[in-house]
């Protein structure tokens, strides 16, 4: 007769909500947290800055090319004697708003295209993928330059010009996630119990496809800001509005005399996008289970 086996008792670990785990993971990434704080400061400066510092960025306030510190102007003046601090604060608003709006548009288009392609497969997928490749082939900056040139340089057009050319990366990621998830068992089970296509796509597959899409969306905000900066550097921006790239572009000829007018706005763009990239990386580590085991 054999003795009954001794099976060691294991402690049952309480399962935690995936969002809580992800948040904790993110919090451990000091660089990402620091970047998030800096970003919040920038956003606050953009929202409240112009109110608290009411100088009009277009107004001539001092002699041109005053270096930083002179005359009580923290960052000096540009070639027309305009206050650089005001330019930065107003520019922050423009960059962030366009960045967010264009990124939102890209994500919206990209997720729609990718989801439809990945879910329905067949000819729908073929057609949508060909369209995606078509947009991938056109150099994005040139394409939006053309759009702005033909339709005029206003904030809405610029936003559309950026959003309409940048969605391909999101579409690729969304499609590949959909392709992967639709084969998983819980999706099969839902389909077997009669869920409609719309429900499958939006309630079941999409929420599980979100992690890489969220990361990409965050990174897209950064690249939209860079994109807008490029366009305004080239002068393709609303003339009634100050934007960081535009400050650099218009002061470019004067770098011999006043390089700070170019380096400082560029630094602002750099820091903003850097923080967004760090946050994006942090999100990637927190949300991506494959890396969690390392």
């Amino acid at each position, binding site marked *: 007769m054999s003795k009954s086996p001794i099976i060691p008792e294991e402690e049952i670990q309480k399962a935690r909500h995936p969002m809580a785990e992800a948040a904790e993971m993110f919090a451990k990434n000091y660089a990402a947290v620091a970047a998030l704080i800096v970003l919040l400061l920038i956003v606050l400066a953009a929202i409240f800055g112009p109110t608290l510092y009411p100088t009009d960025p277009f107004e001539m306030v001092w002699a041109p090319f005053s270096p930083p510190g002179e005359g009580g102007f923290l960052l000096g003046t540009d070639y027309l004697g305009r206050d650089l601090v005001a330019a930065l604060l107003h520019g922050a608003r423009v960059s962030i708003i366009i960045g967010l709006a264009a990124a939102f548009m890209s994500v919206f288009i990209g997720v729609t295209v990718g989801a439809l392609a990945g879910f329905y497969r067949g000819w729908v997928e073929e057609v949508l993928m060909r369209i995606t490749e078509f947009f991938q*082939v056109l150099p*994005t900056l*040139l394409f939006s330059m053309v759009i702005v*040139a033909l339709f005029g340089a206003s904030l809405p057009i610029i936003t559309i010009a950026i959003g309409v050319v940048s969605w391909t990366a999101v579409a690729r990621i969304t499609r590949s996630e959909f392709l992967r998830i639709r084969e998983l068992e819980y999706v099969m089970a839902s389909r077997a119990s009669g869920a409609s296509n719309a429900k499958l796509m939006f309630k079941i597959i999409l929420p599980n496809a979100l992690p890489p899409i969220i990361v990409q969306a965050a990174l897209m905000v*950064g690249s939209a800001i860079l994109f807008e*900066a490029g366009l305004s550097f080239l002068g393709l921006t609303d003339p009634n509005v100050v934007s960081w790239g535009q400050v650099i572009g218009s002061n470019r000829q004067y770098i011999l005399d006043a390089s700070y007018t170019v380096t400082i706005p560029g630094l602002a763009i750099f820091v903003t996008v850097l923080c967004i990239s760090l946050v994006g990386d942090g999100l990637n580590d927190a949300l991506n289970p494959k890396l969690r085991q390392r």
Partner: protein
Amino acid sequence: MAFLKAVITRTLYAALLLAAVLVLNFSMMHLAPGDVADTISQSMGGADAAVLEEIRKDYGLDQPFLVQLGSYFNKVLHFDLGYSFFYNTSVTGLIMQKLPATLLLVVTAQVLALFVGIVLGVYSARNPNGLSSHFVSILALFGYSAPVFWTGILLLIGFSLNVHWFPVAGMYDLTVEGGFFVKLWDLIRHMVLPVITLSSIFLALYSRLCRATMMEVLGSDYIRTAKAKGLSEREIVYKHALKNSLSPVITLAGLQFSAVISGAVLVETVFSWPGLGTLAFQSIIARDTPTILGILFFSALVVIVGNLLTDLALRFVDPRIGRKG
């Protein structure tokens, strides 16, 4: 044989894409407010209604859309991309003049970024916790986050304006006298800063990907087998591991061609590099629609050709592509 078939299919597909670009071009021309006649009359200094009608007839603008599209296609097949009123020359001629400069910049930047990126990636994969590995991560972040025109300007300030190591602008110094090598050296001096600026964005991407791929590859079963065979570390890293890591990096490089051209537009503007980017910028200011669209078409062509070449290159690196398993 399979290779040839692949070349043909890819080429046909590329032609299809180009056709789509043409349709897009043409449609945008028509969607925009104002048409060719307006542009012409502007450069003429204004014209009355009768003259405008004449111009419209001349350009077949009174024909139905599809007929116009057809004749546009026809013209393009004969290498006629239209006429630029601003520069007073054919668009095709204009583009051909400026294309080599851009190609030189773009190709050199991509090759440099790939080469240095792979070297850095391999090195930091072998020493994952070393200084170089952290350097690669930081480099990746900076290169990717800094606006490329700002990087270019910073390099200009640092190396041209303050220390005069490199020229400030342009591609050649017209005053330089001498033979082939003197001129070549002059060209190289002019190329250094623009190429470094343009490759900075992508170097970051490639080195990061190469490092990640190498680290994964170095942990795989066939590397364990190679070790068990008693091969030297050099052979294991550079023969066995590297060849398996190249594929994703080359694929990425292929996908980046359109981004490289976008970056080239900005870099050319900063350094006054006489290529398609500068041309695009100037023609947008001048409202020279045929030229702008011609450049758009051409850059799409460059991207497609670049993709095609990358695709074919991949077949050499990874024997699994295109062969039946």
